[in-house]
């Protein structure tokens, strides 16, 4: 109780429940409609933090760009929504869960690398495989970085806090993984003779095998529609190219080349993607089903599918020679591609999009 005022006889504490009066039991954020029966902690941390003239922003946005565009604008994507505020991220991330998860992954990778290197595992990698890691995993890390930068850009534009924070954590995951790969390669290099850490970037820039991938990534980075970027990253590039390389190649092949470390490092990205994908599917499913704009959105997404799908398909097929580089060949490129096509179909059907045209 304030020392400067006569305390009420009944009130000796400022703790909840110390007095009963109008509003004294109003202990929930009451300005939004929770998705479920009760608001989740994620919703409490997130909903309406980015304000909106359609909700409570009575004075409207008060600083604009030179051309009159406000601080946030629904038309920064060609997609339309009757109510952007409906979207909730499936992974429910706010800062604490994000740092816990990222930190756990960092610790997991550190353990794998430390134990592996201590036991001399790196020196037992098959020499042909070491070259694959050097040239191709080394090139691939730039693709992950490109996805991280594209989503960093995209998180500025969304119309709600929920959309933008989902894209922001996506960016954070991609950037961490690009760095994980970079530092992992740098560490195994210490246990290997003649491991060229600069080779990866050279392959990324010049090797014909990687040019389709680089073109795909640069096209995503060059998009001015933030949702097109988010769509191209998670609905197209990840399943058609990134998972193809991570799961369909590295994770499948590494063990037979005496390498149990790399799959552990790469597996983190598969877990990250499951979460990013769940968020993405939720958002695009909402837009496809939109009562007023569903047809418009479907046509738009089909257009994006064609544009980025063609690039991704081209990128994937150019990667084929990599499958024959390991000495022990246990995986077939065609099987891997088939698996990713199934993956695409599954994602398409969850969102409510027909993806056949870009797969055949």
């Amino acid at each position: 109780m304030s020392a400067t005022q006569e305390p009420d006889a009944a009130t000796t504490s400022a703790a909840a429940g110390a007095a009963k009066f109008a509003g004294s039991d109003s202990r929930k954020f009451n300005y939004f409609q929770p998705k479920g029966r009760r608001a989740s902690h994620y919703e409490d941390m997130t909903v309406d933090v980015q304000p909106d003239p359609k909700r409570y922003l009575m004075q409207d946005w008060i600083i604009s760009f030179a051309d009159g565009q406000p601080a946030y604008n629904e038309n920064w994507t060609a997609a339309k929504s009757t109510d952007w505020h409906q979207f909730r991220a499936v992974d429910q991330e706010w800062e604490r869960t994000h740092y816990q998860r990222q930190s756990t992954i960092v610790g997991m990778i550190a353990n794998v690398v430390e134990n592996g290197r201590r036991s001399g595992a790196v020196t037992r990698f098959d020499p042909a495989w070491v070259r694959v890691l050097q040239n191709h995993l080394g090139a691939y890390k730039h693709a992950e970085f490109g996805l991280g930068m594209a989503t960093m850009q995209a998180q500025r534009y969304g119309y709600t806090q929920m959309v933008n924070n989902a894209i922001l954590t996506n960016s954070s995951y991609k950037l961490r993984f690009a760095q994980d790969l970079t530092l992992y390669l740098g560490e195994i290099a210490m246990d290997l003779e003649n491991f060229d850490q600069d080779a990866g970037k050279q392959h990324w820039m010049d090797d014909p095998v990687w040019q389709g991938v680089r073109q795909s990534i640069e096209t995503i980075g060059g998009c001015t529609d933030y949702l097109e970027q988010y769509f191209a990253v998670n609905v197209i590039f990840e399943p058609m190219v990134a998972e193809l390389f991570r799961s369909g190649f590295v994770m499948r092949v590494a063990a037979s080349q005496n390498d149990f470390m790399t799959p552990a490092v790469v597996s983190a990205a598969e877990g990250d993607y499951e979460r990013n994908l769940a968020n993405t599917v939720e958002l695009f499913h909402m837009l496809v089903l939109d009562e007023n704009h569903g047809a418009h959105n479907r046509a738009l997404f089909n257009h994006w599918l064609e544009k980025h799908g063609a690039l991704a398909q081209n990128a994937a097929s150019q990667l084929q020679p990599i499958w024959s580089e390991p000495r022990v060949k246990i995986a077939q490129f065609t099987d891997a591609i088939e698996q990713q096509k199934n993956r695409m179909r599954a994602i398409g059907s969850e969102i409510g999009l027909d993806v056949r045209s870009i797969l055949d």
Partner: protein
Amino acid sequence: MPDSLSLTKITGQKGMSIGEAARRVADLGWTPSYVQEAMTFPTDYKIKKVPRDPMKQVLRSYFPMQEEKDNRVYGALDAALRGDMFRNVQPRWVEWMKLFLAIIPFPEISAARSMAMVGRLAPGEELRTGFTMQMVDEFRHSTIQMNLKKWYMENYIDPAGFDITEAAFGKCYATTIGRQFAEGFVTGDAITAANVYLTVVAETAFTNTLFVAMPSEAARNGDYALPTVFLSVQSDESRHVGNGHSMLMSIIQDPDNHLLLERDLKYAFWQNHAIVDAAVGTLVEYGTTNRDKNKESYAELWHRWIYEDYYRTYMLPLEKYGVKIHHDDVNAAWDRIVKKNYIHKTAQFFSVGWPVAFWRQEAQTEKDFEWFEHKYPGWYAEFGNYWQWYAKLSKKGEKNILFNQDVGYVYPHRCWSCLVPCLIREDMCTGEVDGKLYTYCSTVCRWTHTTAFAAEYEGRATPAMGRFSGRREWEDCYHGWDLADAITDLGFVRSDGKTLVPQPHLHFDDSKMWTLDNVRGNTLGSPLRAIREMTPEAREKHIAEYRAGFTVNVPN
């Protein structure tokens, strides 16, 4: 175990140095050749692609470090509850947190968004990596602050006001100032917004008052939670300050940028002063019950942090690059705080408007008066009568102070630029943009609107610069409304449908709490509409009277 035989010594293997790791990570970027990145956020600055040496950090050390910080924060919140913090916390303080924590998560997340705007302009990949980490930091700040606010709502005696927080943020007469602050981070010229305004000025100078002065005052009021959260937030700022300085150094090398940089330093410093000192100054000086004469006043803190640390050791050295620093503005800001009572006038304005607030503001009393007079000599003569009126009129059933003609307070014009009202009456001025009349708190604020936020600056085209927009005068939104209807529309009514969320006292007792009926019958109006409708002669007279100030009558 002897010191020399640590675990890392036993298991240790050669690792990468942080410098080498940062260098490798920085090499992840490349120059695109198929499709160029879209430059969607324009700037009128020229950026030299010369990497400065930014902070060296990689995410694999960043995430565990941040998680550890989080663990300490959440552990401290649990400990505060176990220690019954809320039994002893001062309600005067927690009430102001309803305002402060309604505002601050949006500026934080806006800082995250603005990293996209500088990310693509960064000279060099190491700096770009720094911006990516800052983006994740700001996401941390925004949500950790939301968490703190929810925690107050769940544990403090009066949750009303916390429960409507983000809705209140969009509508309140005071939060409008915070929105001006945050929107400045994400609109207009990308360098103006995300580098100069956000980082070079707000983060480098004013986060000290926000995140260091506030925690000290919180602790003095029995609140141990806020310091834990905000000192943890502040510990991320040194990296942001480093990022901003690297970017600044890459801009300042090119003399072509100096004109714009001078404009932006002037705008950013003055706006930060006008907004942050108004809000944080009030919270720290008026939201406290601690009247220890040995503690530093906000003015003393300002002198140390803004004048000595920032102006003298950060801004002045920029002159050696040939950039003109606006010494007069820094001195004028200081004068506004110590000679012109800027903070006291802001607190007075906030309190006059208590019925349209969403937190409680109690009267300052004798014990407070003594401290104010000690720290700000002359305070009592100017504000003593006012606060006695306030105490008297805080009783339910009195004519509320905003409309009580006996008091003598004159409701102020809004400054179209900083959105704080024109409280230093003698400095109030008007200006015209596109044939329309506007009011300003100061000539620098007028310059900001008429000259800085325009398509051209001193003969140079500035196509990227932002514009002021929207219904910037809050009072205009309720022009002609009955006060009770406005409060209902604001949503500042408690769950019984009649008791107000705001109260001019700290009585947690229905019989003493004001309801809609106690404020009905008073009509709100827009001072800007009024002054625009005047004839030139009437306006001139009105301005002269306004600038002459007012006298609060002796309470009867």
